[in-house]
Protein backbone atom coordinates (compact mmCIF):
# COMPACT_ATOMS: atom_id res chain seq x y z
CA UNK A 1 0.00 0.00 0.00
CA UNK A 2 3.07 2.21 0.15
CA UNK A 3 2.90 2.75 -3.60
CA UNK A 4 -0.78 3.64 -3.41
CA UNK A 5 0.03 6.22 -0.75
CA UNK A 6 2.65 7.68 -3.07
CA UNK A 7 0.08 7.91 -5.83
CA UNK A 8 -2.35 9.57 -3.45
CA UNK A 9 0.18 12.23 -2.47
CA UNK A 10 0.89 12.83 -6.14
CA UNK A 11 -2.79 13.36 -6.84
CA UNK A 12 -3.21 15.66 -3.86
CA UNK A 13 -0.18 17.64 -4.97
CA UNK A 14 -1.82 18.35 -8.31
CA UNK A 15 -4.84 19.95 -6.61
CA UNK A 16 -2.60 22.92 -5.84
CA UNK A 17 -1.43 23.34 -9.43
CA UNK A 18 -3.05 25.59 -11.95
CA UNK A 19 -5.65 23.96 -14.18
CA UNK A 20 -4.79 23.99 -17.85
CA UNK A 21 -8.33 24.43 -19.09
CA UNK A 22 -8.99 27.27 -21.51
CA UNK A 23 -12.56 28.56 -21.58
CA UNK A 24 -12.67 28.12 -25.31
CA UNK A 25 -15.52 30.02 -26.92
CA UNK A 26 -14.78 33.07 -24.77
CA UNK A 27 -11.02 32.74 -24.69
CA UNK A 28 -9.25 31.88 -27.89
CA UNK A 29 -5.81 30.44 -27.61
CA UNK A 30 -3.27 32.46 -29.50
CA UNK A 31 -2.47 30.55 -32.63
CA UNK A 32 0.97 30.79 -34.16
CA UNK A 33 1.76 32.71 -37.30
CA UNK A 34 2.40 29.61 -39.29
CA UNK A 35 -0.92 28.06 -38.44
CA UNK A 36 -2.45 26.29 -41.40
CA UNK A 37 -6.18 26.35 -41.50
CA UNK A 38 -7.96 26.20 -44.84
CA UNK A 39 -6.70 27.92 -47.98
CA UNK A 40 -8.04 31.34 -48.85
CA UNK A 41 -7.46 33.54 -51.87
CA UNK A 42 -5.68 36.86 -51.53
CA UNK A 43 -6.84 40.22 -52.80
CA UNK A 44 -4.55 42.59 -54.60
CA UNK A 45 -5.84 45.77 -52.98
CA UNK A 46 -3.95 48.41 -55.07
CA UNK A 47 -5.33 47.05 -58.32
CA UNK A 48 -8.58 45.92 -56.74
CA UNK A 49 -8.58 42.41 -58.12
CA UNK A 50 -7.48 38.96 -56.96
CA UNK A 51 -3.89 37.85 -57.34
CA UNK A 52 -5.10 34.60 -58.77
CA UNK A 53 -4.88 34.22 -62.50
CA UNK A 54 -6.65 30.89 -62.59
CA UNK A 55 -3.59 29.02 -63.82
CA UNK A 56 -4.78 25.65 -62.46
CA UNK A 57 -1.42 24.92 -60.78
CA UNK A 58 -3.02 24.37 -57.39
CA UNK A 59 -5.85 22.40 -58.87
CA UNK A 60 -3.42 20.01 -60.48
CA UNK A 61 -1.24 19.68 -57.41
CA UNK A 62 -4.05 19.10 -54.95
CA UNK A 63 -3.84 15.55 -53.62
CA UNK A 64 -7.53 15.33 -52.79
CA UNK A 65 -8.83 17.25 -55.79
CA UNK A 66 -10.88 19.62 -53.72
CA UNK A 67 -10.42 22.63 -56.01
CA UNK A 68 -12.18 23.74 -59.13
CA UNK A 69 -10.76 26.69 -61.03
CA UNK A 70 -12.22 28.56 -63.97
CA UNK A 71 -10.16 31.20 -65.76
CA UNK A 72 -11.28 34.17 -67.87
CA UNK A 73 -9.74 37.09 -69.73
CA UNK A 74 -9.05 39.99 -67.44
CA UNK A 75 -11.19 42.98 -68.42
CA UNK A 76 -8.84 45.28 -66.52
CA UNK A 77 -5.93 44.19 -68.68
CA UNK A 78 -7.70 45.56 -71.68
CA UNK A 79 -8.06 48.95 -70.02
CA UNK A 80 -4.45 48.85 -68.85
CA UNK A 81 -5.24 48.92 -65.16
CA UNK A 82 -3.76 45.51 -64.57
CA UNK A 83 -0.83 43.55 -65.90
CA UNK A 84 -2.68 40.25 -65.52
CA UNK A 85 -3.80 38.93 -68.86
CA UNK A 86 -5.99 36.24 -67.35
CA UNK A 87 -7.92 36.36 -64.11
CA UNK A 88 -9.90 34.00 -61.97
CA UNK A 89 -13.51 33.68 -62.92
CA UNK A 90 -14.82 31.01 -60.61
CA UNK A 91 -13.05 29.19 -57.79
CA UNK A 92 -14.48 26.54 -55.53
CA UNK A 93 -12.71 24.79 -52.68
CA UNK A 94 -14.47 22.00 -50.87
CA UNK A 95 -13.33 22.57 -47.29
CA UNK A 96 -14.85 19.25 -46.34
CA UNK A 97 -12.37 17.57 -48.62
CA UNK A 98 -9.29 19.72 -48.20
CA UNK A 99 -6.62 18.08 -46.08
CA UNK A 100 -4.65 21.24 -45.42
CA UNK A 101 -1.39 19.95 -46.83
CA UNK A 102 -0.08 23.35 -47.93
CA UNK A 103 0.83 22.09 -51.40
CA UNK A 104 -1.41 24.57 -53.23
CA UNK A 105 0.41 27.39 -51.49
CA UNK A 106 3.78 25.94 -52.43
CA UNK A 107 2.98 25.56 -56.11
CA UNK A 108 1.32 28.91 -56.58
CA UNK A 109 3.46 31.16 -58.73
CA UNK A 110 1.50 34.31 -58.02
CA UNK A 111 1.29 34.13 -54.22
CA UNK A 112 -2.42 34.22 -54.70
CA UNK A 113 -3.39 31.52 -52.23
CA UNK A 114 -2.50 31.18 -48.60
CA UNK A 115 -3.39 29.03 -45.65
CA UNK A 116 -5.63 31.01 -43.35
CA UNK A 117 -3.87 31.54 -40.04
CA UNK A 118 -6.65 33.14 -38.04
CA UNK A 119 -9.39 31.64 -35.97
CA UNK A 120 -11.81 32.36 -38.81
CA UNK A 121 -10.17 29.50 -40.64
CA UNK A 122 -10.91 27.05 -37.86
CA UNK A 123 -14.41 27.84 -36.69
CA UNK A 124 -16.21 26.60 -39.75
CA UNK A 125 -18.87 24.31 -38.37
CA UNK A 126 -21.80 23.98 -40.69
CA UNK A 127 -25.02 22.08 -40.58
CA UNK A 128 -24.71 20.89 -44.15
CA UNK A 129 -21.71 19.57 -45.97
CA UNK A 130 -22.65 21.52 -49.05
CA UNK A 131 -22.08 24.74 -47.17
CA UNK A 132 -18.44 23.78 -46.85
CA UNK A 133 -17.92 24.25 -50.58
CA UNK A 134 -16.57 27.76 -50.68
CA UNK A 135 -16.96 29.92 -53.76
CA UNK A 136 -14.79 32.78 -54.94
CA UNK A 137 -16.51 35.46 -52.84
CA UNK A 138 -16.23 33.47 -49.65
CA UNK A 139 -12.62 32.58 -50.32
CA UNK A 140 -11.67 36.19 -50.90
CA UNK A 141 -13.90 37.95 -48.40
CA UNK A 142 -11.39 37.78 -45.56
CA UNK A 143 -8.55 39.14 -47.64
CA UNK A 144 -10.78 41.79 -49.17
CA UNK A 145 -11.76 43.01 -45.72
CA UNK A 146 -8.09 43.21 -44.78
CA UNK A 147 -8.47 40.72 -41.96
CA UNK A 148 -5.63 38.49 -43.03
CA UNK A 149 -2.88 38.01 -40.50
CA UNK A 150 0.32 39.73 -41.69
CA UNK A 151 2.27 36.55 -41.01
CA UNK A 152 0.36 34.67 -43.66
CA UNK A 153 2.67 32.96 -46.07
CA UNK A 154 1.49 32.85 -49.60
Amino acid sequence: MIGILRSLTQVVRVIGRKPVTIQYPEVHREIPNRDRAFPILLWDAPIDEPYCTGCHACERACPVECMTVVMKDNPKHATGESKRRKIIDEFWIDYGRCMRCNICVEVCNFEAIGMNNTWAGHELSRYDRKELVMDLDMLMSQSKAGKVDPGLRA
Partner: protein
Amino acid sequence: MVTEQHDRSLEVVDIPINMGPQHPSTHGVFRMVLVLDGEVCKDVIPHIGYMHRGGEKLMEAMDFRQGIGYCDRTEYLAQFSAELGYVMAVERLMELEIPDRAEYIRVILTELNRLSSHFMFMGAFGIDAGVFATSFTYAFPQREYIQELFEEVTGDRLMYAYFRVGGLAWEVTDNFVQRVHEVLVHTRQGLRDLDELLTKNEIFMVRCQGIGAFTADQAIAYGLSGPMLRASGVPWDLRKDDPYSVYDRFTFEIPVGNHGDVYDRYLVRLEEMRQSVNIIEQALEQLPAEGPIVAEKLPRRLRTPPGEVYSKVEAPRGEWGVYLVSKGGDKPYRLKMRSPSFCNLSALREMCIGQFMADAVMILGSMDIVLCDVDR
Protein backbone atom coordinates in the same frame (compact mmCIF):
# COMPACT_ATOMS: atom_id res chain seq x y z
CA MET B 1 -32.52 -24.13 -27.44
CA VAL B 2 -35.86 -23.92 -25.69
CA THR B 3 -36.91 -27.38 -26.79
CA GLU B 4 -33.72 -28.98 -25.59
CA GLN B 5 -33.57 -27.05 -22.39
CA HIS B 6 -34.02 -30.00 -20.08
CA ASP B 7 -31.12 -31.83 -21.72
CA ARG B 8 -28.65 -29.02 -21.55
CA SER B 9 -29.52 -27.58 -18.17
CA LEU B 10 -26.19 -28.55 -16.62
CA GLU B 11 -24.07 -28.00 -19.69
CA VAL B 12 -21.35 -25.38 -19.32
CA VAL B 13 -21.18 -23.13 -22.33
CA ASP B 14 -18.64 -20.57 -23.38
CA ILE B 15 -20.02 -17.12 -24.02
CA PRO B 16 -18.83 -15.35 -27.13
CA ILE B 17 -18.82 -11.68 -26.27
CA ASN B 18 -18.39 -8.99 -28.83
CA MET B 19 -15.95 -6.32 -27.77
CA GLY B 20 -15.84 -3.34 -30.07
CA PRO B 21 -15.93 -1.62 -32.45
CA GLN B 22 -17.76 0.73 -30.10
CA HIS B 23 -16.29 -0.49 -26.87
CA PRO B 24 -14.57 2.21 -24.79
CA SER B 25 -11.25 0.40 -24.55
CA THR B 26 -10.63 -0.92 -28.02
CA HIS B 27 -8.68 2.19 -29.03
CA GLY B 28 -10.58 2.98 -32.16
CA VAL B 29 -12.71 0.83 -34.34
CA PHE B 30 -11.17 -2.47 -33.46
CA ARG B 31 -13.42 -5.39 -32.78
CA MET B 32 -12.59 -8.62 -31.04
CA VAL B 33 -14.82 -11.50 -30.19
CA LEU B 34 -13.85 -12.93 -26.85
CA VAL B 35 -14.94 -16.47 -26.10
CA LEU B 36 -15.32 -16.41 -22.36
CA ASP B 37 -15.45 -19.26 -19.91
CA GLY B 38 -16.72 -17.25 -16.98
CA GLU B 39 -14.17 -14.47 -16.89
CA VAL B 40 -11.37 -16.30 -18.66
CA CYS B 41 -10.73 -15.89 -22.36
CA LYS B 42 -10.64 -19.17 -24.20
CA ASP B 43 -10.32 -17.66 -27.61
CA VAL B 44 -9.96 -14.26 -29.15
CA ILE B 45 -10.98 -13.50 -32.68
CA PRO B 46 -9.82 -10.06 -33.81
CA HIS B 47 -11.64 -8.31 -36.62
CA ILE B 48 -9.89 -5.48 -38.34
CA GLY B 49 -10.55 -3.42 -41.42
CA TYR B 50 -13.13 -0.90 -40.26
CA MET B 51 -10.68 1.89 -40.99
CA HIS B 52 -9.39 0.59 -44.28
CA ARG B 53 -9.07 3.45 -46.75
CA GLY B 54 -6.68 1.97 -49.23
CA GLY B 55 -3.95 4.33 -48.17
CA GLU B 56 -1.20 2.43 -49.92
CA LYS B 57 -3.09 2.37 -53.18
CA LEU B 58 -4.02 6.03 -52.81
CA MET B 59 -0.38 6.92 -52.43
CA GLU B 60 0.42 5.15 -55.66
CA ALA B 61 -1.71 7.74 -57.39
CA MET B 62 0.08 10.60 -55.65
CA ASP B 63 3.41 12.13 -56.47
CA PHE B 64 6.08 12.08 -53.83
CA ARG B 65 5.12 15.36 -52.25
CA GLN B 66 1.43 14.61 -52.11
CA GLY B 67 2.02 11.26 -50.47
CA ILE B 68 3.52 12.82 -47.37
CA GLY B 69 0.14 13.96 -46.17
CA TYR B 70 -1.15 10.42 -46.33
CA CYS B 71 1.70 9.19 -44.12
CA ASP B 72 0.50 11.57 -41.42
CA ARG B 73 -2.98 10.26 -41.71
CA THR B 74 -1.92 6.66 -41.53
CA GLU B 75 0.10 6.85 -38.34
CA TYR B 76 -1.59 9.75 -36.67
CA LEU B 77 0.22 9.54 -33.35
CA ALA B 78 3.74 9.30 -34.72
CA GLN B 79 3.39 11.42 -37.81
CA PHE B 80 7.01 12.50 -38.07
CA SER B 81 8.24 8.91 -37.92
CA ALA B 82 5.85 7.98 -40.69
CA GLU B 83 6.89 10.93 -42.81
CA LEU B 84 10.53 10.18 -42.15
CA GLY B 85 10.16 6.59 -43.31
CA TYR B 86 8.49 7.69 -46.50
CA VAL B 87 10.80 10.53 -47.45
CA MET B 88 13.83 8.41 -46.61
CA ALA B 89 12.63 5.78 -49.05
CA VAL B 90 12.39 8.33 -51.82
CA GLU B 91 15.69 9.92 -50.87
CA ARG B 92 17.46 6.58 -51.00
CA LEU B 93 16.03 5.91 -54.39
CA MET B 94 17.13 9.32 -55.62
CA GLU B 95 20.43 9.07 -53.73
CA LEU B 96 20.04 12.49 -52.20
CA GLU B 97 22.45 13.93 -49.67
CA ILE B 98 20.51 15.57 -46.84
CA PRO B 99 22.08 18.60 -45.17
CA ASP B 100 23.11 18.18 -41.55
CA ARG B 101 20.82 20.80 -40.16
CA ALA B 102 17.79 19.19 -41.73
CA GLU B 103 18.79 15.82 -40.32
CA TYR B 104 19.15 17.19 -36.82
CA ILE B 105 15.82 18.96 -36.95
CA ARG B 106 14.26 15.76 -38.20
CA VAL B 107 15.74 13.82 -35.30
CA ILE B 108 14.61 16.40 -32.75
CA LEU B 109 11.09 16.47 -34.09
CA THR B 110 10.86 12.71 -34.42
CA GLU B 111 12.01 12.18 -30.87
CA LEU B 112 9.60 14.82 -29.63
CA ASN B 113 6.95 12.96 -31.54
CA ARG B 114 7.98 9.78 -29.78
CA LEU B 115 7.46 11.59 -26.49
CA SER B 116 4.02 12.79 -27.47
CA SER B 117 3.06 9.34 -28.72
CA HIS B 118 4.21 7.65 -25.55
CA PHE B 119 2.38 10.26 -23.50
CA MET B 120 -0.71 9.20 -25.36
CA PHE B 121 0.05 5.59 -24.49
CA MET B 122 0.56 6.38 -20.81
CA GLY B 123 -2.74 8.21 -20.62
CA ALA B 124 -4.78 5.64 -22.48
CA PHE B 125 -3.13 2.73 -20.73
CA GLY B 126 -4.00 4.18 -17.35
CA ILE B 127 -7.62 4.37 -18.43
CA ASP B 128 -7.50 0.76 -19.59
CA ALA B 129 -6.20 -0.17 -16.18
CA GLY B 130 -9.08 1.72 -14.63
CA VAL B 131 -7.53 4.95 -13.34
CA PHE B 132 -10.30 7.45 -13.68
CA ALA B 133 -8.69 9.54 -16.42
CA THR B 134 -6.02 10.84 -14.05
CA SER B 135 -3.16 9.37 -16.02
CA PHE B 136 -4.77 10.78 -19.13
CA THR B 137 -4.94 14.29 -17.76
CA TYR B 138 -1.38 14.05 -16.47
CA ALA B 139 -0.09 13.02 -19.85
CA PHE B 140 -2.18 15.25 -22.06
CA PRO B 141 -1.27 18.76 -20.92
CA GLN B 142 2.38 17.82 -21.34
CA ARG B 143 1.67 16.32 -24.73
CA GLU B 144 -0.12 19.52 -25.59
CA TYR B 145 3.08 21.55 -25.04
CA ILE B 146 4.85 19.34 -27.55
CA GLN B 147 1.97 19.70 -29.94
CA GLU B 148 2.00 23.47 -29.61
CA LEU B 149 5.67 23.46 -30.52
CA PHE B 150 4.89 21.37 -33.60
CA GLU B 151 2.16 23.79 -34.51
CA GLU B 152 4.54 26.71 -34.26
CA VAL B 153 7.08 24.98 -36.46
CA THR B 154 4.91 23.22 -39.00
CA GLY B 155 1.65 25.10 -38.82
CA ASP B 156 -0.54 22.16 -37.97
CA ARG B 157 -1.34 20.42 -34.74
CA LEU B 158 -1.61 16.92 -36.08
CA MET B 159 -1.01 16.53 -39.79
CA TYR B 160 2.36 18.15 -40.11
CA ALA B 161 3.45 17.40 -43.69
CA TYR B 162 6.74 19.01 -42.78
CA PHE B 163 9.41 16.54 -43.83
CA ARG B 164 9.97 16.73 -47.54
CA VAL B 165 12.02 14.70 -49.92
CA GLY B 166 15.46 16.23 -49.62
CA GLY B 167 14.98 18.02 -46.35
CA LEU B 168 12.33 20.08 -44.71
CA ALA B 169 9.46 22.11 -46.05
CA TRP B 170 10.67 25.32 -44.45
CA GLU B 171 13.01 26.65 -41.80
CA VAL B 172 12.10 26.22 -38.16
CA THR B 173 11.14 29.20 -36.04
CA ASP B 174 13.87 31.50 -34.75
CA ASN B 175 13.46 30.54 -31.11
CA PHE B 176 13.18 26.83 -31.89
CA VAL B 177 16.02 25.67 -29.63
CA GLN B 178 14.78 27.63 -26.68
CA ARG B 179 11.24 26.42 -27.22
CA VAL B 180 12.36 22.81 -27.29
CA HIS B 181 14.12 23.32 -23.98
CA GLU B 182 10.94 24.80 -22.55
CA VAL B 183 8.90 21.87 -23.78
CA LEU B 184 11.37 19.43 -22.26
CA VAL B 185 10.86 21.04 -18.86
CA HIS B 186 7.18 20.21 -19.10
CA THR B 187 7.92 16.76 -20.43
CA ARG B 188 10.12 15.93 -17.47
CA GLN B 189 7.40 17.09 -15.14
CA GLY B 190 4.86 14.90 -16.90
CA LEU B 191 7.21 11.94 -16.66
CA ARG B 192 7.66 12.51 -12.93
CA ASP B 193 3.92 12.78 -12.42
CA LEU B 194 3.13 9.60 -14.32
CA ASP B 195 5.97 7.75 -12.67
CA GLU B 196 4.71 8.71 -9.22
CA LEU B 197 1.13 7.93 -10.11
CA LEU B 198 1.54 4.54 -11.74
CA THR B 199 4.90 2.81 -11.56
CA LYS B 200 4.97 1.81 -7.92
CA ASN B 201 1.21 1.68 -7.42
CA GLU B 202 0.58 -1.82 -6.11
CA ILE B 203 -2.77 -2.21 -7.80
CA PHE B 204 -1.26 -1.13 -11.09
CA MET B 205 1.59 -3.57 -10.58
CA VAL B 206 -0.68 -6.44 -9.73
CA ARG B 207 -2.79 -5.68 -12.77
CA CYS B 208 0.18 -5.56 -15.14
CA GLN B 209 2.70 -8.07 -13.92
CA GLY B 210 2.79 -11.50 -15.46
CA ILE B 211 0.09 -10.68 -17.98
CA GLY B 212 0.48 -11.25 -21.68
CA ALA B 213 4.05 -12.40 -21.19
CA PHE B 214 5.94 -13.24 -24.34
CA THR B 215 9.36 -14.81 -24.50
CA ALA B 216 11.99 -13.46 -26.85
CA ASP B 217 11.51 -16.38 -29.24
CA GLN B 218 7.76 -15.90 -29.37
CA ALA B 219 8.13 -12.19 -29.89
CA ILE B 220 10.52 -12.70 -32.80
CA ALA B 221 8.30 -15.42 -34.26
CA TYR B 222 5.36 -13.05 -34.32
CA GLY B 223 7.41 -10.27 -35.85
CA LEU B 224 6.88 -7.89 -32.99
CA SER B 225 8.96 -4.76 -32.95
CA GLY B 226 9.53 -1.68 -30.91
CA PRO B 227 8.74 -1.61 -27.19
CA MET B 228 6.81 -4.87 -27.47
CA LEU B 229 9.92 -6.67 -28.69
CA ARG B 230 12.29 -4.94 -26.34
CA ALA B 231 10.09 -5.73 -23.34
CA SER B 232 10.49 -9.39 -24.25
CA GLY B 233 14.22 -9.09 -23.88
CA VAL B 234 15.49 -8.49 -27.41
CA PRO B 235 17.69 -5.40 -27.56
CA TRP B 236 16.57 -4.57 -31.09
CA ASP B 237 16.30 -0.93 -31.89
CA LEU B 238 16.78 0.36 -35.40
CA ARG B 239 18.38 3.48 -34.01
CA LYS B 240 21.15 1.22 -32.77
CA ASP B 241 21.15 -1.70 -35.18
CA ASP B 242 20.63 0.13 -38.43
CA PRO B 243 21.31 3.78 -37.68
CA TYR B 244 19.48 6.03 -40.09
CA SER B 245 19.57 9.80 -40.28
CA VAL B 246 22.12 11.00 -37.69
CA TYR B 247 21.28 8.56 -34.92
CA ASP B 248 24.83 7.22 -34.93
CA ARG B 249 25.98 10.49 -33.40
CA PHE B 250 24.16 10.15 -30.10
CA THR B 251 24.92 8.24 -26.95
CA PHE B 252 21.92 6.78 -25.25
CA GLU B 253 20.57 3.61 -23.72
CA ILE B 254 18.00 1.15 -24.90
CA PRO B 255 15.76 -0.26 -22.17
CA VAL B 256 15.18 -3.99 -22.44
CA GLY B 257 12.68 -5.86 -20.32
CA ASN B 258 13.26 -9.21 -18.68
CA HIS B 259 9.74 -10.55 -18.32
CA GLY B 260 8.00 -9.55 -21.52
CA ASP B 261 4.74 -8.80 -19.77
CA VAL B 262 2.51 -5.77 -19.81
CA TYR B 263 4.36 -4.13 -16.95
CA ASP B 264 7.67 -4.41 -18.77
CA ARG B 265 6.14 -2.81 -21.85
CA TYR B 266 5.00 0.08 -19.72
CA LEU B 267 8.42 0.43 -18.09
CA VAL B 268 10.21 0.21 -21.42
CA ARG B 269 8.10 3.01 -22.82
CA LEU B 270 8.61 5.13 -19.73
CA GLU B 271 12.36 4.66 -19.93
CA GLU B 272 12.34 5.28 -23.67
CA MET B 273 10.81 8.65 -23.03
CA ARG B 274 13.68 9.55 -20.72
CA GLN B 275 16.13 8.43 -23.39
CA SER B 276 14.29 10.49 -25.98
CA VAL B 277 14.75 13.55 -23.81
CA ASN B 278 18.40 12.63 -23.62
CA ILE B 279 18.70 12.32 -27.40
CA ILE B 280 16.91 15.61 -27.98
CA GLU B 281 19.29 17.37 -25.64
CA GLN B 282 22.29 15.98 -27.48
CA ALA B 283 20.77 16.87 -30.82
CA LEU B 284 20.12 20.41 -29.67
CA GLU B 285 23.76 20.73 -28.66
CA GLN B 286 25.00 19.43 -31.99
CA LEU B 287 22.44 21.27 -34.14
CA PRO B 288 24.27 23.48 -36.65
CA ALA B 289 23.23 27.07 -36.08
CA GLU B 290 22.64 27.68 -39.74
CA GLY B 291 22.86 25.94 -43.01
CA PRO B 292 20.69 24.68 -45.80
CA ILE B 293 17.66 22.63 -44.94
CA VAL B 294 17.02 21.20 -48.38
CA ALA B 295 19.32 19.03 -50.42
CA GLU B 296 21.24 20.71 -53.20
CA LYS B 297 20.17 20.32 -56.81
CA LEU B 298 16.74 19.14 -55.85
CA PRO B 299 14.60 19.09 -58.98
CA ARG B 300 11.37 21.00 -58.87
CA ARG B 301 9.48 17.96 -60.06
CA LEU B 302 10.60 14.91 -58.12
CA ARG B 303 11.39 11.96 -60.32
CA THR B 304 12.99 8.78 -59.09
CA PRO B 305 15.08 6.39 -61.13
CA PRO B 306 13.55 2.94 -61.52
CA GLY B 307 14.29 0.64 -58.64
CA GLU B 308 13.02 -0.54 -55.35
CA VAL B 309 13.90 0.37 -51.82
CA TYR B 310 12.88 -0.53 -48.29
CA SER B 311 13.43 2.11 -45.67
CA LYS B 312 12.66 1.57 -42.03
CA VAL B 313 12.62 3.78 -39.00
CA GLU B 314 12.14 3.11 -35.32
CA ALA B 315 8.69 4.56 -34.78
CA PRO B 316 7.26 4.75 -31.26
CA ARG B 317 5.35 1.54 -31.90
CA GLY B 318 8.12 -0.34 -33.63
CA GLU B 319 9.56 -0.76 -37.05
CA TRP B 320 7.80 1.48 -39.52
CA GLY B 321 8.88 0.42 -42.96
CA VAL B 322 8.12 1.73 -46.41
CA TYR B 323 8.72 -0.50 -49.38
CA LEU B 324 8.77 1.52 -52.53
CA VAL B 325 8.95 0.29 -56.10
CA SER B 326 9.44 2.86 -58.76
CA LYS B 327 9.40 2.44 -62.49
CA GLY B 328 10.69 5.94 -62.93
CA GLY B 329 8.51 8.98 -63.02
CA ASP B 330 7.02 11.01 -60.23
CA LYS B 331 4.82 8.40 -58.64
CA PRO B 332 5.53 5.16 -56.83
CA TYR B 333 4.65 2.06 -58.81
CA ARG B 334 3.99 0.12 -55.65
CA LEU B 335 4.03 1.25 -52.07
CA LYS B 336 3.78 -1.03 -49.09
CA MET B 337 3.78 0.14 -45.52
CA ARG B 338 5.04 -2.21 -42.88
CA SER B 339 3.11 -0.86 -39.97
CA PRO B 340 4.18 -1.82 -36.46
CA SER B 341 0.66 -1.74 -35.06
CA PHE B 342 -0.53 -4.39 -37.47
CA CYS B 343 2.35 -6.76 -36.79
CA ASN B 344 2.12 -6.27 -33.04
CA LEU B 345 -1.61 -6.82 -33.08
CA SER B 346 -1.10 -10.26 -34.61
CA ALA B 347 0.12 -11.48 -31.25
CA LEU B 348 -3.11 -10.54 -29.51
CA ARG B 349 -4.73 -13.95 -29.69
CA GLU B 350 -1.75 -15.82 -28.38
CA MET B 351 -1.32 -13.37 -25.53
CA CYS B 352 -4.94 -13.26 -24.47
CA ILE B 353 -5.82 -16.94 -24.38
CA GLY B 354 -6.03 -18.12 -20.80
CA GLN B 355 -6.07 -14.61 -19.41
CA PHE B 356 -8.95 -12.80 -17.79
CA MET B 357 -11.26 -10.61 -19.78
CA ALA B 358 -9.97 -7.56 -17.91
CA ASP B 359 -6.44 -8.57 -18.87
CA ALA B 360 -7.35 -8.75 -22.53
CA VAL B 361 -8.11 -5.04 -22.29
CA MET B 362 -4.76 -4.42 -20.65
CA ILE B 363 -2.91 -6.46 -23.25
CA LEU B 364 -4.59 -4.61 -26.07
CA GLY B 365 -3.77 -1.36 -24.33
CA SER B 366 -0.14 -2.34 -23.89
CA MET B 367 0.18 -2.89 -27.63
CA ASP B 368 -0.54 0.77 -28.14
CA ILE B 369 -2.08 0.22 -31.53
CA VAL B 370 -3.18 2.94 -33.89
CA LEU B 371 -6.11 1.57 -35.76
CA CYS B 372 -5.50 3.68 -38.82
CA ASP B 373 -2.06 2.20 -38.94
CA VAL B 374 -3.43 -1.33 -38.66
CA ASP B 375 -6.03 -0.97 -41.38
CA ARG B 376 -4.34 1.69 -43.51
